């Protein structure tokens, strides 16, 4: 820290260029880039259009082929293990033939209770949207308050740490007793499952706002609302999105528990219903649907997070 003070002037004056103001605009990093540009054309000619396409294809193949191979092997082992009379679980071939309409056409409608899994997923997604939406709003608001106050953090954090481990199914009876109606109770179960990571991550994000940004806000005399929108939310955004990403995963996990209550046409209830009528093949197909939708939801929130926190990522 204690820089020797005598040197700079001599060095500066000796090596100062003729036009001091212009040279400021070209920092060393950009000068390095200029030099790179001179070098590139010499190497470039070999790199043709076709070569670039083939290298892209190779990259795609490298990411797509391994999971496909593993999947094929798994299906084969599964088929060999269950392809005999009296097997407890259906084989892939049996599932294909028994649940063919569920697999190939997600959006059929044969009757009020006999619809494609696509429709069921959409119904469940609507429910999750309510539950997760509430969890996001309450989670960020509560997290902001807790992150601001040392006492709220000390008081509430242990309670949250205990409550967040309670599984979704355990909330069912309490939720039903409180709301007396299956619809709101289902949304509540999703909400209560997803809200904890949002609260905790937001609180940590708020606590980690650098003192520099707080000082800037103080010098500018930002009011609490301005501080919330202009400093807190952008600064804590990476943490908030981590919480939201965990939250969306958890709320999708809670869908089966929630729909055991509500009945109707959701994908969660479909599994419960199929189990009661021993349609194992349908359950397997529904599981795959749930898995894929959960994966897409996770990636979607991650993508939104990446776009929204572009500015803060490399600050």
């Amino acid at each position: 820290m204690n820089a020797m003070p005598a040197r700079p002037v001599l060095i500066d004056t000796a090596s100062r260029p003729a036009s001091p103001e212009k040279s400021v605009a070209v920092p060393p990093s950009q000068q390095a880039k200029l030099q790179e540009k001179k070098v590139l054309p010499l190497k470039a000619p070999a790199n043709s259009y076709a070569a670039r396409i083939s290298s892209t294809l190779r990259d795609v193949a490298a990411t797509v082929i391994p999971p496909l191979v593993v999947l094929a092997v798994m299906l084969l082992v599964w088929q060999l293990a269950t392809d005999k009379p009296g097997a407890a679980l259906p084989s892939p071939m049996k599932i294909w033939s028994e649940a063919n309409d569920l697999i190939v056409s997600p959006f059929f409608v044969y009757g009020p209770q006999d619809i494609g899994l696509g429709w069921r997923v959409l119904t469940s997604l609507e429910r999750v949207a309510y539950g997760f939406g509430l969890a996001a709003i309450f989670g960020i608001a509560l997290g902001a308050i807790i992150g601001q106050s040392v006492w709220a953090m000390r008081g509430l954090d242990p309670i949250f740490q205990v409550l967040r481990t309670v599984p979704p199914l355990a909330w069912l009876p309490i939720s039903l007793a409180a709301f007396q109606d299956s619809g709101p109770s289902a949304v509540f179960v999703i909400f209560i499952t997803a809200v904890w990571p949002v609260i905790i991550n937001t609180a940590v994000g708020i606590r980690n706002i650098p003192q520099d940004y707080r000082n800037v806000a103080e010098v500018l005399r930002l009011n609490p609302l301005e501080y919330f929108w202009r400093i807190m939310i952008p600064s804590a955004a990476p943490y908030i999105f981590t919480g939201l990403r965990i939250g969306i995963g958890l709320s999708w996990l809670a869908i089966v528990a929630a729909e055991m209550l509500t009945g109707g046409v959701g994908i969660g209830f479909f599994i419960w219903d199929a189990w009661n009528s021993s349609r194992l093949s349908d359950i397997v197909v529904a599981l795959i649907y749930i898995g894929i939708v959960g994966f897409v939801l996770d990636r979607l929130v991650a993508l939104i997070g990446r776009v929204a926190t572009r500015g803060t990522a490399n600050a």
Partner: protein
Amino acid sequence: MSVTEKPFLQIQGVHKTFRRGGTETEVLNDISLDIAEGEFLSIIGHSGCGKSTLLNLIAGLTRVTTGAVLLEDREVNDPGPERAVVFQNHSLLPWLTVYENVHIAVNKVFGKKKSRAERHDWTLHNLDLVQMGHAKDKRPAEISGGMKQRVGIARALAMEPKVLLMDEPFGALDALTRAHLQDSVMQIHARLGNTAIMITHDVDEAVLLSDRIVMMTNGPSARIGEVLEVDLPRPRERLELVADARYIHAREAVLKFLYERHRFVEAA
């Protein structure tokens, strides 16, 4: 700049004690200083001597334990845009562009006094003042350290502060960039006539820029050791000053204070 009976900025018998756990540390011990309007004042001292604390007290970011800071005869107890701060590590908000970083300050300070178009022009004017108009749409991560500090200065100037507070504004920059920015700050000070207080640990920087240099003794319980008037005519030219007897004398006085009478023992 007329000398009235009341100084523009007064620091009166300021003590600052930090309390952590059971232990109390006195950082500043009886600091008194009068600063005239339009003056450029540097505060120099070794690391840990409380010079940044003193600046934070003037900024209102930290409260005095006893004593008072008075600006135009009004006591300072909280931060505000009339005492704009240029932070050591620029403190730009990384999610805003260069333009937005200055504009947020302009909107806050002149939201009611100026029209939307005037605020836009004022933002651009201040960016041009530090020669950063060309990078207005870039984000802080995309520009160099020197450029960030320029934007930090533009943001502070855009608030039209009564006092411009700079906390080691060039500390994190390389020697060449530092020299250019020092020249820029001198030009801007000559043009706008702001009152400016700068924390530094660079002797040449202090002598080149200041009207007066306040030298602090080592902490804890740092005091003002000496105040040196830098009697050099403005505008000052870096190259011409190197051989100027008054410049050499001032430099020597500060160096002697720092390295003979108040050696920083822990640094060895």
